[in-house]
Structure formats: C-alpha cells, structure tokens
C-alpha cells in the first residue's frame, strides 16, 4: 500500500511541479507585476506544440502536422520557451496598455483563439486527434517502475532552477520596479519607470517559462491534443498562486502542490464504485469549500508576500 501510494504520489507531484513552473511564471507577471493575465495557457499551448513539432518524427500516414524534425529534447524545450516568449511579445505588445479587466478578457480571448486554431487547423498540428505516444526524457535508461520517480526528480530540479531565476528577478531592481508599477503606476512613472517596457519584459519572461512548462506537460501526458490546453490550466494556476500567496514565489510552489494534492487526495475518499460518479461531483464541491476556507482564513495566501528587509542585509546575503 505504501509503495503504491508513493508511486501515485510521485505522479501527482510531477504534475504539481509542472503547474509550479507555470505558477512561478504567472507569479512574476501577475503577482510581482500586477498583470491580470487570464491567457497564460496560450504560452503553455504554444510551447507544448513547438516542442512536440520539433522533437517528433515526421508525420506518418493519416497524420498531418508541420515540421517533425526529430530534434533533441533539450532543443525542443528551449524552443518551447522561445516560442512562449514570442507569443507573449506578440500578444503583449498591443494589449499591455489595457487596464485590469480589459487586459484579463483580451488575454483570455487570445488563448481561446489560439486553442481554436490548434483545434481546427488539421495541417498544423493534426487537429483534435493530436499526436500520440510522445517520448519522455531519459526513459531508456530506467526501468518503467522507477521512471516516475526519475521524472519527478527531473521536474523538481527544473522547478528549483525556475524558482532561483524568478526569485532573483523578483528581488532585483527589475522586480522592484515591477512591484512599484503594480502598487502605484503614476508614482512609478515619476520615478522614471517606463511601464510598457517593464510590463512587456515581465510578460515575455513569463511566456518563456510557461512555454517550457508546455514541453514538460507533454513529458507528463505523452500525448498532445488541443483539449489539453483549455483555460482550466489558467484558472488552476491562478488559484494556486492565490492560495499560495500572490507575489511569493515559494507560495506559488506551495499553492500548486497543495491544490493538486487537495484535488487528487480526494480520490482516496472512496464509497465504492456505485457512488463513484456522484462522488466525483461531490469532490468538486469539497475542493470549492477548501478554496473558500483558505481564502477566508488566509486571504493573503498560505505564504503572504514577504517583506523585503535590508536592515541586516549583510548577514542575510
């Protein structure tokens, strides 16, 4: 029982780690900078598809997609990040001047349009049928029973790297300027901070990491279809950072893990298969209650935004 649970746990933690990467990216743009981005899934989708199209072999009979270069995975991951950045730049350039709710709905609309294109343009990415049986990294070196742990280890390392990068950005001058824009844009202007430039940088960086997360998502699911990239991912990651604590990078990770764990551990609430379907609905309600409860008793999230102190900075560094 224990070992089986460990295996299941490692599988869902892997998923949590992927969400954590997206959450860290979103946290930079939405938590540190104050962008209400409801289209973060578009970076993930474009990253995932770029990765897949570059790393798979050419389309076989009955399939149809572009590229299929069979490039190494790491090239694919890097390309996924770059593709995410490019999409972020293209979306951000015209939309970043919009205010909160307007920005929110425009980014959401972009995400929907991108998903519709991926759904309907068969020649591009094999449409709704998607591409199946995609490779996982370092798979051949390990036995299948150990591999889930290896994938988890790999993703933990990735989360750690992304965390370090985002953490450094957050507490750099750059991050401080983003926070200033979030807190009081007119005042930030008088400090000589140029909003459009800083916003687009934050957006593009977030696009990069969310793009790479797309590649990791493909590792996890071994399948790519447009239905993977609904706005559920966006809402999920938003909830993770709100629960974890907006603008706290550790919070983004903690929020992702807690939210995935909360959802998945409800699978252990078992009243037998006869009730399984109704239970699935009830679990949604329980998840909702958990969310409400956390927000009620910890409105700033589990790990609220940290106070930046310099008073004894020499000892702390």
């Amino acid at each position, binding site marked *: 029982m224990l070992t*089986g649970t*460990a*295996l299941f746990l490692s599988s869902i933690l892997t998923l949590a780690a992927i969400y954590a990467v997206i959450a860290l990216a979103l946290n930079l743009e939405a938590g540190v900078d104050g962008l209400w981005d409801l289209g973060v899934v578009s970076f993930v989708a474009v990253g995932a598809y770029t990765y897949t199209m570059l790393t798979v072999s050419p389309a076989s009979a009955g399939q149809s997609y572009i590229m299929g270069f069979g490039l190494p995975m790491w090239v694919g991951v890097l390309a996924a990040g770059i593709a995410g950045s490019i999409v972020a730049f293209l979306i951000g350039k015209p939309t970043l001047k919009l205010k909160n709710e307007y920005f929110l709905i425009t980014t959401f609309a972009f995400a929907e349009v991108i998903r519709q294109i991926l759904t*309907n343009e068969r020649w591009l990415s094999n449409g709704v049928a998607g591409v199946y049986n995609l490779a996982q990294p370092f798979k051949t070196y390990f036995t299948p029973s150990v591999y889930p742990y290896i994938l988890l280890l790999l993703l933990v390392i990735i989360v750690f790297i992304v965390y*370090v990068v985002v953490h450094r950005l957050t507490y750099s001058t750059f991050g401080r300027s983003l926070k200033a824009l979030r807190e009081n844009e007119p005042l930030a202007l008088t400090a000589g901070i140029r909003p459009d430039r800083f916003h687009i940088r934050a957006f593009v960086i977030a696009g990069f990491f969310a793009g790479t997360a797309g590649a990791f998502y493909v590792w*996890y699911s071994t399948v790519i279809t447009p239905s993977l990239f609904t706005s559920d991912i966006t809402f999920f990651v938003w909830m993770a950072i709100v629960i974890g604590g907006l603008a706290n990078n550790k919070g983004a990770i903690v929020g992702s893990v807690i939210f995935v764990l909360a959802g998945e551990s409800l699978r252990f609430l078992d009243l037998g298969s006869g009730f399984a379907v109704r239970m699935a609905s009830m679990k949604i309600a329980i998840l909702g209650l958990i969310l409400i409860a956390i927000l009620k008793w910890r409105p700033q999230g589990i790990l609220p935004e940290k106070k930046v102190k310099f008073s004894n900075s020499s000892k702390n560094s």
Partner: protein
Amino acid sequence: MNKWLKLTGILILALALVISLGGCGTTTEETAGGDTINFGYSSGFTGDMAPWAEPVVNAANAAIDEINAAGGILGKQVVLYAEDNKSGVEGSVQAATKLLSVNKCTVILGPESDPIMALQSFAKENKIPVIGTQCGTSALDAIGGTGNYLWRTSPSDSFIGICEANVVKNTMGIDKVCIMYENTEGSTSAAESFTHNFEALGGTIVNTIVMSSNQSSYSSEIKKAVDSAPQLLYISTGQVVANTLLKEIYQKSIEIPLLGTTELQNDELVAAVQQAAVGLMSVRVVENEDSTGWDRFVELYTDKFGVAPMAGYYQSNSYDATIIAALALAAAGENTGEAIENKLSEVANPPGVKVGSYADGIAELAAGNDIDYEGASGPCDFNEFGNVNGPAVAVMEVSSDLKWVQTQKIDATGF
C-alpha cells in the same frame, strides 16, 4: 546560497528515499494480491464525457455483481475501483496511476478516446491491460492487441463508418450527404471515417459543417447544411450539441432524413427533444443470428437499475469488457496484468464453446474447454489489434411514439 544548497540536498535525499521505497515496491508488487481481485474503471465523471459516466459504471458494476454472485474469480471476490479521468488526458494518467499503484488493479476498463491514447506506453510498461469501452477513435485501430495492452469492446469508428456508409449508400440508396460534426476528438473521428468510406463507395459529401461545442444556437450551421441540398444529414456530436441541433432542425421543419452516430442512440436524447427526434436513425453493431446476449443484458440491467440500457451509452460494451477481463483472469489462473493480457483474445474469440455469461464461462473453463464469449454488445471477437467488429448492423430509428426501434438488420460480413 548556502540555504539553497541545503534545500536541494534535502530534496534530493527525500527523493532518493522515495525512489528506494518505490524500488522495493516493484519486487513485492507482482506477488501482492490481497484477499480481493481489483478491477479499475477510468472514465470521465466530470467534463465533456460526464453524461455517459453513470450508465457505463453501472453496467460494469452489474457485471461485477454477476461475477461475485458466481463465486468470484479463482475464489476471490472482485472489487471495482472507479476513478474520474476528467474526460481528458491529464486526468487519465492520474486515474490510471492511482488504479495501478494504490488500488493494485490488474486491469483498467473504460477509458474514452483521448484518455486511452494517453495510456499507450503506460499500459505496456506497467503490463496492465486497458480495455476501452466507449472509444471509437481510429487512432487505436492498429496499435492494440496482445502484447500492446490496449483493447476495446466498442467498435472502432472506422468499422462503424464502413457500416454507416454501406447502409446509407447501398441500403438507402442515398448519394448526397451533408456532414455536421462537433469539433471534438470523438465526433471528428466518426465523421471522418464515414466521409472516407462513403466517398469510397461513390457517394458525394455535398458539404461538411464543423460545429463548435456549447453554442446556444446552430441556426446558421443548419442553414448552410440545408443550402447544400443533401439527401441526408449525418450528425456526429455529443449529447449537448445534439439536443440543441435536433430541436432547431425540427423547429425549421426540415424534412431531410437524419443519421446520427451510435452515441446519439439513447433515451435521454429522445426524452429531451421529444418529437424532434422522430425519424432520427442510427446504426449499431449486433449479432448476426438472433442472439440473446443483448436481451439478457437489458433484462439484467433493467432489474438492477430500473431503466433500460441503450446502445448509445456503451453499457453493453462496458459490461462485456468486465466479463471478458474476468474470464481471462479465470482462464489464466493468475492475478496479474500480463496473465490477463495473454488470455483476453483466447476467451473472447473462437474457437471454443460459445458462452454468454460469466457463470457459463467459468463452468466451461473448469471443464477444461476453450471458450468464446458472446456478449451483450455483439460477438466480442478481437482482431489482432484488439478491436471488435460485428457480423451485422441494425438500423435503429426513433418511432413516432418516441422509442428506438430496429427497422432493419444488415449482414456486415461483406463490408
């Protein structure tokens, strides 16, 4: 920086611990059986596939009850663990992992098209057979079968497509068809298969209209379809779209005959749209000679749940998959995925004594006979890729008193 180094160190240590635990697990897992035999069921209890969830799980439970009533398998009772795959790929991986590692299931039943495709390598690597009961995707046509751990008891869209095309072109004598399908994986696959086969038979597709899900109206789409002057409308959608679409077609007094996919062959749809469903046709796979399988299942299911099963809800496919898995396990005499995998074809396919229930099956097995299970959904004979085809198809139609009735049966062996 030191803090980070420490943190990484701890994380790696923790992971190493987990891995070593997992490593130990693999050695014990093979032998761990427990007092029960565990079957897993993975299906979309939430999300797009949710309308099908209850009926299919009920059907599997009906089978489990029957198995346990007959003394279980190898003297052990069977427990069904049902997990929500959230109608998608991500949930499918989670559900399957949980069923395999936590519930120690030796077979996973149920997944739909996208979800089962996500388990392609999972099934093979973990040596756990996955038997789809409600997936039509043609992507599965040539990748399953013994050794690949993927199976299905629901017919492939490719096969249904051939049947539908034959029925439309040859039996009804219709040449011009307009296709309306929803752009989801299941619906697209069915529509493409029909298109391909209908054109191969010399028919003309006058227009293909792809619909987005969840719209409040499809008036514009219907108008486009009618303008192309087809002799028949081929409809491939989920429940929700079908409800709106059929109502609107009725409201516009459009008299063009309608052929829906098997999925639309259910009573909820008819109850929902009432008169608008009258005349809706649909094709399903049946036995060639008069088989009692379906009737027996209808009776059994109705007794248990108070409503009759419908072909479009894949209940019979779900039921059959459960029974076949149980028979395979009984035949193998060993509760492992690998053992079941190797016997699935054998118990379901000829040659052998034809059996129609689990009790008959184990009796024959005990007598040392090879068996050939004939199920509620048809003969359930797997081809080399783990797909089932049928010997005949029935054309179903909604009668004016709002009942699905069989209007004709056509031999499908020649298709």
